[in-house]
């Protein structure tokens, strides 16, 4: 095969017909998904075209400031998304701050480590490496933290009588919530562990598929995929654990009393 089969707008609109077909079926079955499906598809097109243009410009300049701006934008959007997915979220700045800061610490430290020690590009912040890696990190860490925090706050709410009874028996707040905390971390990490366990057997990971389609040697694509999966799993793990540990503390006050009043309703909650 010589080079890459480039995709024309016509090719992409053929693919879009599939989405329209799905919307039609959703309409027939009364699933109520048409609107969200079409809006999401439209967002995909617009957002990806925009980021494609931005990346082209940034790659051409290799200006560190732009990389910082893009990274921070990704962080804030991901943080907002984590907050939006909570059925019961922490009130005030904690709602946005908890997920965002956990993501900030785990994502940036691991990406930095990989760029400096493993990839060793010159300069280390070369945008062709830094931005895709950060993107992969944010996408997955966001999911882990969102799932874990949602589990934590939901379980604490549902099991409030049990937590209360354990506190009344003289358990410390961290003993009283230990089971829920463990369960929440597990919930955040299981998607990544499953993805690692089935990688290449059940599905070919998206990044690797993309590289192979774009004409890269499969063995080279595999090497990068392994690197990505390890760093993404570590990032998700550390980020989720940090968010859950801090979140579990925030559910109690200095007298070790359960403080569910620190949680408010989220976007999807029905009250």
């Amino acid at each position: 095969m010589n080079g890459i089969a480039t995709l024309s707008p016509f090719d992409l609109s053929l693919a879009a017909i599939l989405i329209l077909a799905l919307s039609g079926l959703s309409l027939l079955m009364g699933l109520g998904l048409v609107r969200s499906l079409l809006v999401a598809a439209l967002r995909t097109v617009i957002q990806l075209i925009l980021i494609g243009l931005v990346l082209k410009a940034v790659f051409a300049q290799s200006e560190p400031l732009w990389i910082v701006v893009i990274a921070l934008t990704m962080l804030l959007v991901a943080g907002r998304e984590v907050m939006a997915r909570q059925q019961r979220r922490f009130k005030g700045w904690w709602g946005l701050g908890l997920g965002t800061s956990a993501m900030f610490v785990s994502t940036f430290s691991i990406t930095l480590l990989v760029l400096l020690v493993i990839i060793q590009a010159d300069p280390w912040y070369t945008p062709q490496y830094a931005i895709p890696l950060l993107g992969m990190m944010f996408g997955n860490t966001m999911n882990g933290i969102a799932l874990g925090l949602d589990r934590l706050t939901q379980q604490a709410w549902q099991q409030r009588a049990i937590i209360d009874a354990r506190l009344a028996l003289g358990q410390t707040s961290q003993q009283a919530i230990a089971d829920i905390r463990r369960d929440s971390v597990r919930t955040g990490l299981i998607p990544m562990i499953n993805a690692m366990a089935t990688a290449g057997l059940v599905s070919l990971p998206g990044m690797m598929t993309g590289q192979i389609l774009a004409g890269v040697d499969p063995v080279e694509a595999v090497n990068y995929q392994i690197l990505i999966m390890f760093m993404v799993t570590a990032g998700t793990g550390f980020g989720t654990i940090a968010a859950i540990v801090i979140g579990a503390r925030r559910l109690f006050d200095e007298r070790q009393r359960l403080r569910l009043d620190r949680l408010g309703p989220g976007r999807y909650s029905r009250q």
Partner: protein
Amino acid sequence: MVDVAAETPVNQLDLIAVKAGDLVAVSLTVVAGECLVIAGASGSGKSRLLRRIADLDPCVDVETGGDPSFDTGQIMLAGVDHLSYSGAEWRRRVAYVAAESQWWFDDVASHFETLPESEQMQSLGLEQHLLQQAVSRLSSGERHRLALLRVLMQQPQVLLLDEPTASLDPKATLAVEKMIADYRKRYQAAVIWVSHDASQARRVGQRHFCIEHGQLIEQGRVP
């Protein structure tokens, strides 16, 4: 404060201007070995008061606004302010027993730090083998008595009982009353007992209170 502690008898619970929910600030003393019964309509603040004493709720109801970190009143055990202990340490001394029992492990025994002996089980009309059973197989009465035993095994100095016999039949009710009376006398524990049942109040209590219009009113003392 050290002097006060030295002079105050062990297991004496002192409340000084303690606020809980809509209740007017409460001041009272429960001496060691005494059982004080509180009656009052549902929603009058009995549970709130007990939970406040156990330091399970912040003082000001944060749902209606107000600064939740602002605690008023003083709660003291044997002359020592509850704030001298961590929340967990305080609740080991001053145990709150809710009207409904809660279980979080599959089997009964895992919920006990030290397992009760067979005489203790028998005095409550419970078979020893219940400890090895799954919680889901117990009747609600059995669960409730075991939950009470779970608290007593930790030997708290003060018991705060929130309608502890509401879900029990008359026979089990009497067994629980006797068990608590025995515990109170043996360990000189101070007891605050919330009860709707007037005849039970007469059986178990030495001092009687009721809550009316947000006020805790003393109604009488049985010698």
